[in-house]
């Protein structure tokens, strides 16, 4: 087995999701090569080289990869795909964008968002918003896979010393150009890797009221998330959305506030270790998955929670 893993990074450091994908790759076994493609990304490549179990790091440092445009990045991965048996990426928005393009260019199927490795050709993934688990076998010569972070522990990030090898860029596909981005700014931990997540739903009533949740999050060092309804209503940006079609999280503690618990939301958080629900409707479905449920008006309970946590 030879696994090529497309690392997710911000040029300076690896994104946490890369380390979860490394664990999946190591369960598949064999040689593990990390591809760090970006611009001025040598320090990310050095971080990749320090991950134990990594046999080699390929560094593609070129302006073409500055913004991970799918058309150019897929071209690069295909050019490097040679004799690898597995091409893997974390199931981040970038991995989901690029890998199916790679798979189609290689004329092979992709297995999306695996939760578990059964054997090098057999994987488990969820379907129907997490309401069923499918065990899927691939007979393809190259298995193209994206890895759901919550299925795998993060690999250690230090102790390894793999060699870094520079590789040539694969040329510009000439199809796309980066224009700009609007990234949500906050000092909080990343939603998908935070140990604690506090999420708000339609019950929050406004974006301003999310300050109540931020106060709790500050006390707990938590990330802030949201339901689709809260995002659609414009209370918070799109990248806060937790669920089937947003981010999948599995923190040690998930606190759902003013969220009813639709299956699409549960799909994104029901693997959390401990779930707390605060909702004024005692019949809200969220209570069926909550370890601790509090039937209360959030506008009373949340400020009280902040106070209690200061004690």
């Amino acid at each position, binding site marked *: 087995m030879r696994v090529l893993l497309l690392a997710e990074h911000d040029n300076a450091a690896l994104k946490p999701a890369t380390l979860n994908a490394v664990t999946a790759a190591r369960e598949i076994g064999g040689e593990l090569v990390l591809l760090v493609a970006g611009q001025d990304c040598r320090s990310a490549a050095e971080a990749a080289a320090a991950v134990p179990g990594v046999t080699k790091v390929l560094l593609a440092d070129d302006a073409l990869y500055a*913004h991970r*445009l*799918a*058309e150019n990045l897929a071209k690069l991965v295909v050019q490097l795909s040679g004799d690898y048996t597995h091409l893997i990426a974390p199931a*981040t*928005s*970038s991995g*989901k*964008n*690029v890998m*199916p*393009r790679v*798979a*189609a*260019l290689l004329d092979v*199927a*992709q*297995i*999306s*968002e695996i939760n578990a490795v059964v054997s090098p050709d057999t994987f488990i*993934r969820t*379907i*129907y918003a997490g*309401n*069923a*688990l*499918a*065990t*899927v*076998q*691939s*007979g*393809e010569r190259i298995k193209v896979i994206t890895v759901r972070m919550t299925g795998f522990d993060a690999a250690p990030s230090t102790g390894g010393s793999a060699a870094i090898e520079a590789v040539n860029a694969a040329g510009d596909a*000439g*199809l*796309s*150009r980066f*224009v*700009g*981005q609007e990234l949500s700014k906050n000092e909080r931990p990343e939603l998908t890797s935070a140990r604690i997540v506090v999420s708000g739903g339609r019950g929050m009533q406004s974006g301003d009221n999310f300050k109540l949740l931020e106060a709790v999050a500050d006390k707990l060092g938590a990330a802030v998330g949201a339901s689709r309804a809260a*995002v*659609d209503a414009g209370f918070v*940006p*799109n*990248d806060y959305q937790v669920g089937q*079609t947003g981010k999948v999280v599995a923190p040690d*503690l998930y606190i759902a506030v003013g969220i009813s618990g639709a*299956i699409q939301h549960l799909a994104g958080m029901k693997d959390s270790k*401990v*779930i*707390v629900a605060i909702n004024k409707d005692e019949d809200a479905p969220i*209570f*069926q998955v*909550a*370890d*601790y*449920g*509090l039937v*209360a008006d959030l506008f009373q309970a949340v400020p009280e929670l902040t106070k*209690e946590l200061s004690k």
Partner: protein
Amino acid sequence: MKVLVAVKRVVDFNVKIRVKADGTGVETANVKMSMNPFDEIGVEEAVRLKEAGKATEVIAISLGLPQVQETIRTALAMGADRGIFVQTNVELQPLAVAKLMKAVVDKEKPEICILGKQAIDDDANQTGQMLSALLGWSQGCFASKLVINGDGTANVTREVDGGLETVTLKLPLVLTTDLRLNEPRYASLPNIMKAKKKPIETLTPEQLGVDPAPRLKTLKVGEPPKRKSGVKVKSVAELVDKLRNEAKVI
């Protein structure tokens, strides 16, 4: 400019699905089926392009069993001009759908293909990217905004992990819809009636020269582990005490 929009028939998003006892799949008999919600957004976007005078024709395509024609009819009632039905009883996986759609694109020559970001049954999130790759086109995935520029390009704003990203893409392009792209309309009764007269062409994989055989084998479909039911706490103080001393997570 023609627009081709894919519409998949899936189990309605409100249905709580049941896994078949023999582990072969999910119960779909006598279950409410609907258009994949992301595809409703796709049809809406295509129809708006036509209403804005940017598109000349909107073609809705669905692939699978004869029942998917109902989904095409829904798209026609929302404003698509005609339908293409690719008939097969083979289990369709994303790569096969992409190949069949590519063959249709080669015939119809649309400038824009719109697909959903993900089908809510297989949760694959692959087909649009694959189609784009097979065509050698640009891809605007997880789109929350599409602006056609006058110069053979379009700007697409994409929902990404950190927020939003805007790219300029060369036409022709493949777009996949995200939830915030638009709010799809409901078909009015007169439009539902009118849709009955709009044409749907039937094609087969053989006619399109594509082998749609599945590449992945599903060995088993099972239930996810159930969470054990929890407790209701009476006060915030009790909640914090339990989190600190029982669950030990804070």
